[in-house]
């Protein structure tokens, strides 16, 4: 580079160090300036604090298990857990039996939806190739068909579970389970099936 041989480059550390000193100076100034009132304004209600900690911890866990467990399972479980506890506004011991039962049934449901989706996609693909229906081999078309299937399935479930949904104890489980399954499958269709993002498969080999 021009001038390097004479040492005219301020160097790669010049600006980072300058920023470091600037931040240090300003932080020191702000620490001493902060009032007790400002500190008090930052307090968070207990229930919300629990939910924030849960969200952060589960997000870390999600990142750690994402590759091993796979997108479908880790996403559905994260979503179910967060929606369930957010719905109740806090994490209380008496909520755990419902949570455990809901988590298992929701995971099974997600797996069923995913398997059905894969089956539809593959069937369309094979059919398209065997019968030379070009449309059937299109990734967008198969994603659309799976989406349609999902919409019909969810509509049927919502209608048939209409009376159960109104019972407050099961409402949170149903809402969390259905949302987790729907969002997970929707994201899978958009990112994996349409945009070919390599979402980790994890333990799901099919």
């Amino acid at each position, binding site marked *: 580079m021009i001038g390097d041989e004479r040492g005219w480059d301020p160097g790669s550390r010049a600006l980072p160090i300058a920023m470091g000193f600037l931040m240090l100076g300003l932080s020191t*100034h702000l620490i001493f300036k902060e009032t007790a009132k400002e500190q008090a304004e930052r307090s968070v209600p207990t229930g919300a604090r629990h939910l924030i900690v849960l969200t952060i911890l589960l997000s870390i866990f999600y*990142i750690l298990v994402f590759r091993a467990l796979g997108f479908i399972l880790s*996403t559905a479980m994260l979503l179910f857990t967060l929606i369930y506890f957010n*719905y109740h506004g806090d994490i209380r011991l008496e909520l755990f039996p419902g949570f455990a039962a809901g988590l298992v049934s929701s995971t099974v449901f997600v797996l069923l939806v995913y398997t059905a989706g894969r089956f539809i996609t593959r069937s369309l693909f094979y059919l398209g190739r065997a019968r030379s229906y070009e449309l059937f081999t299109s990734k967008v078309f198969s994603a659309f068909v799976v989406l349609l299937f999902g919409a019909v399935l969810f509509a049927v479930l919502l209608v048939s579970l209409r009376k159960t949904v109104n019972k407050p104890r099961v409402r949170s489980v149903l809402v969390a389970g259905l949302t987790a399954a729907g969002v997970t499958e929707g*994201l899978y269709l*958009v990112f994996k099936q349409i945009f070919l993002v*390599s979402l980790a498969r994890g333990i799901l080999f099919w």
Partner: protein
Amino acid sequence: MEELFSGIQQVFNLNTILWIALGEVLGIIIGALPGLTATMGIALLLPLSFQLARVTGIGLLLGVYCGAVSGASIPAILLGIPGNPNAIATVYDGQAMTRKGLAGQALGGAVVASFIGGILSLIALSLFSPLIARFTLAFGPAEKATLALVGLTIIASVSAKNLAKGILTGAFGLALAFMGTDPFTDTLRVPFPELLAKTPLVGGINLIPALIGLFGVSQVLYDLERIQEGRLAPPQLKIEKVFPPLRKVASMWRIILESTGIGTLIGAIPGTGASIAVFLSYERAKRITSSPRSKLEKVGSGCLEGVMAPEVANNAVTGGALIPVLSLGIPGDAGTAVLLGALLIKGVVPGYQLFSQNMDLVYAILFALLLSNVFMLTFQLLGVRIFPKVLSIPMALLLPVILVLSMIGAYAIKGQAVLAATFDMGVALVLGIIGYYLKKADYPTAPIVLGLILGGLLEVNFRRAVKLAGGNYLVFFTKPIAVVFIVLAVFSVVLPLIQKRRRS
């Protein structure tokens, strides 16, 4: 002429039209939900736009931007809670009109005003951007470095109540931008090199996960604090007579023109944003309508004038804020800062070169913005009874979905390299947590984004200028344009201090 047709062709095809329409609908929904901002919407949809063709992706983001800015008026009018700070001034007359049973007219007036403001500012954008961009021909490294500095200091001083907090977060953004390898020598430049040298951090902080973290994840954590407040209940209103009488709109020509001018001008000043523009235009409209000669209804009494003035300014900001983005590469507000990041990722380099060599792309961006405004008018008028229903979506359901969308969005950028992609999720989460604590302590996050975007420009040109001047650090004071920028930067820091002293 060929470039004009090429621009039209790039936008007016089924694929792009559908994506812009989708962006518009999503934008309106995001804008209508209190707590969710246009910036967050753009950040969340960045990964999706990344998968699309250049103009299609930019169109999607512009759709979200326009939709979210105008959608914020829905809760402002119906509930008295602005969807985001841009709609604060709409609350006064909008809520009063709802109480009078004129919710339909207020919603319709807000949409028409948003459309007028958006289109007029689009004209300003297409007229002024090439002129300002031509000015950049005279820019060398010293001018570019000081331009980046002025962009940073303005946004740092305007976006925070406390100047020190604004500068601190700006410096933090710059520090993040410097992470990775040196642009000149490829020297490793990460903290704790023994630990981090083998991580993808060596390549620096990826802009999209950083944006998603700062605006998506942090917002989720911030909104969790209010989750116990439950869902908002949209009032059961009869929404009728949506389209405002044309004669009434025409009689407000002075308010509309002045609000457009205010919105476009304020939007074009880096760092100012719509919340200042809406108050200025509201105050101006108040003054116009309270004149004894005025035949208009008095602003503040619950009238269309009071809704339309801030809404015109609000959407005029969208075109105005894009002027410095396209011509100088300096964003007008946090939303356009994210848009600028998207443009850079898509290979669009703002400045004179864009207007001299990629005019078809400029036309395409302008047409995409035009189409976004047309869709905004159409969808909002057609869905005036439907969109208010999104207010009843419970936050308990929405926040986890946004969190997952943020995570997968951060992952999708490097979606083919699983390890690097998973690492990006970590970046989004860490910056999300930092962003949350910053918000809690009333620190602005917009300067961080600007620091991240402008860090490279600042460093490369600062070092290049010093090298070319033979190690003379005073080179920045020998170039007239650079001196003007330095004076502006100093002015933007000193002015708030003087104002504060005067007030106290």
